[in-house]
């Protein structure tokens, strides 16, 4: 007698397409998924608990290791939270350096998302092209901070290092170069029939679902919700720049891909304007006490990281360490919709959907 059996398949933690140590336990019937259960925690380091025994400046390197593809935004959110509590005014030049570093980081992060997504879909070359251009960004950030990935660049009240000579010009020259490359990327991938076939209509969810699951970033904007904290709750000096919030209506993997590619172009616009307006000289660090003590009380700030809203909650009892620190890590929240999306899809779509969420495991596990 012929009978079929459900199969339990462990995707990860060691699997080429889970972008780290993510594990997904799926029940499959043939290649159709009937149930999916994400298992996380393989990279948990207890950043939040560790922070309770660290001074504020010492916490900053730990944030580098959360979303390691866009460490600048993580740096910023902790500094921003402490500055909000202490009421520190950041010097203009430092603000410019921060914004430029964050936007470069956003581009680098989206380039990795683009390259690895295509790698997930089976195309090998885009990954290398993306990393070539990302390498240039990494080199620029390296000149700025002395590190390629874990920058530890920002400080409460400003930034650690001033831009070296000719750095702003380098960024200015980079903008038209990358615009040209992005055009090439669209030619190579965005119009490709096989690619469109893989992503159109796959992993679709509605606006309501996105909001109910607390998604943010490209995962939210792909459903048509125009919500970007850089525009809606401007922090730093984002209100000085003219840029669009990229949205798509369809809410599928293609929409998420398009939002990310659009954001690269918008970040380039911001960079271009920042280079124009960059103040010739000025302080890079505000007057802050030697030992930073946040006043008694609590604060929550949130900013737009490449992956969504990254938030930082600090509860302080007036000591030099926080009483409690909590990060709202966007990848963790974006991942929650995955089990719902995967039911009824096949293995190939599993990879396409997971890749389009664009998780960073350092951030998911905290």
């Amino acid at each position, binding site marked *: 007698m012929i009978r079929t059996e459900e*199969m339990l*398949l462990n995707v990860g933690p060691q*699997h*080429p*397409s889970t972008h780290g140590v993510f594990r997904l336990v799926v029940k499959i019937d043939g*290649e159709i998924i009937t149930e999916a259960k994400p298992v996380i925690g393989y990279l948990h380091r207890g950043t939040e608990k560790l922070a309770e025994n660290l001074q504020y400046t010492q916490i900053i390197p730990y944030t580098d290791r959360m979303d390691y593809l866009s460490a600048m935004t993580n740096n910023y959110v902790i500094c921003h939270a402490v500055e909000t509590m202490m009421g520190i005014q950041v010097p203009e030049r430092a603000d410019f350096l921060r914004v430029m570093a964050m936007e470069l980081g956003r581009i680098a992060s989206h380039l990795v998302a683009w390259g690895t997504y*295509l*790698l*997930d*879909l*089976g*195309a*090998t*070359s885009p990954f*290398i*092209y993306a990393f*070539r251009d990302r390498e240039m960004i990494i080199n620029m950030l390296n000149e700025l901070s002395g590190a390629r990935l874990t920058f530890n660049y920002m400080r409460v009240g400003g930034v650690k290092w001033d831009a070296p000579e000719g750095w702003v010009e380098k960024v200015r020259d980079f903008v038209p170069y990358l615009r040209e490359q992005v055009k090439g990327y669209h030619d*190579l*991938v965005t119009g*490709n029939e*096989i*690619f469109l*076939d*893989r992503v159109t209509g796959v992993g679709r969810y509605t606006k309501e679902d996105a909001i109910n699951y607390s998604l943010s970033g490209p995962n939210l904007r792909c459903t048509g919700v125009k919500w970007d904290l850089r525009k809606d709750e401007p922090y730093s000096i984002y209100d000085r720049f003219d840029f669009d919030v990229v949205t798509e209506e369809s809410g599928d993997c293609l929409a998420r891909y398009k939002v990310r590619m659009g954001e690269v172009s918008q970040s380039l616009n911001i960079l271009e304007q920042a280079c124009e307006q960059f103040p010739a000289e000025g302080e890079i660090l505000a007057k802050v006490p030697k030992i930073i003590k946040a006043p008694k009380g609590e604060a929550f700030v949130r900013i737009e990281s490449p992956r969504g809203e990254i938030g930082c909650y600090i509860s302080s009892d007036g000591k030099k360490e926080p009483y409690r620190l909590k990060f709202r890590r966007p990848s963790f929240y974006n991942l929650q919709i995955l089990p719902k999306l995967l039911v009824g899809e*096949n*293995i*190939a*779509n*599993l*990879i396409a959907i997971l890749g389009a969420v664009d998780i960073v495991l350092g951030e998911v596990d905290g």
Partner: protein
Amino acid sequence: MVQDLLHSSPGLANFAIFFLLGVVLLLVVLGFVTYGILAERKVMGYMQLRHGPNQLGGNWGLLQTVADVLKLLLKEDIIPKLADRPLFILAPVIAFAPSFMVLATIPFTDKFQFADIGVGLLYYIAVSGLTTFGALLGGWGSNNKYALLGGARAAAQMISYEIPLVMSVLGVILLSGSLNLNDIVHAQKGGWFILLQPIGFIVFFIASVAELNRTPFDLPEAESELVAGFHVEYSGFRFAFFMLAEYVYLFAMSALITVVFLGGWLPPFAFLGFIPGAVWFSLKFCVVIFVYLWLRSTLPRFRVDRLMEFGWKVLLPVALGNIFLTALIKSLFF
């Protein structure tokens, strides 16, 4: 020469000559596989802003593949405890043996051909189909879920693409009036079949990529989905056998396309006939190989259900239409 031997009475001397010829062909093919892999890595490296192998054997990495193969041969032979042992051991052989068998009928030049059999084209397609059993058995025998999925995909892919492959060459057979590969080459004196059978060529080429399990149809071993598909549990020389089969098929399929669609050893124009046929053959052959490599570094992978749809709903009807069209034109105008 070979023909005379085939018709002479069997004897020890004949056997020795055939054995020697077989060894020569084996070496030629292994030489190709060695440098085919190197070419693939170099071409892909060039397209991906890398150097490719450049350490072993000078800047061109001429010994890299040799070293890789040696490494694979020297590795420990691992058979998973719960694997189906006989199947697991048999599978690479089943995948590999037909890949050499198909080479027998391919006319490399007008003189160098092992078996000039009447149904050479049919023989090629029939024998090459056997390889899928290797993938299927390997996937089943490994007792690994990814391998099982890969093996099932391989079987499904074979059924879907073998048929358009056969249907698309029927147009060529109608025009040449023969299944013999030599006759097919001779029939192209007036014009290559790529020009006379453009639709047939496109269908055949797409189906051949699927037959070869290469990107964008590398679903049985889709590394980002099934890790490595049917050969996920294989290592050492058994893995080498699977890889060898894959590249020998690349060799055989490129040779077949050269013979069937690109005029084999014939020069493109009659006045260029002073250049030996072997040169023309290898030139055309290299172009076909390059296109395969080019595809691999450009395209993403198909989705498995789309692959089936594409095979049955697009390629097969187009191939059938091509047969009809060819028959119509032939009976009306010739």
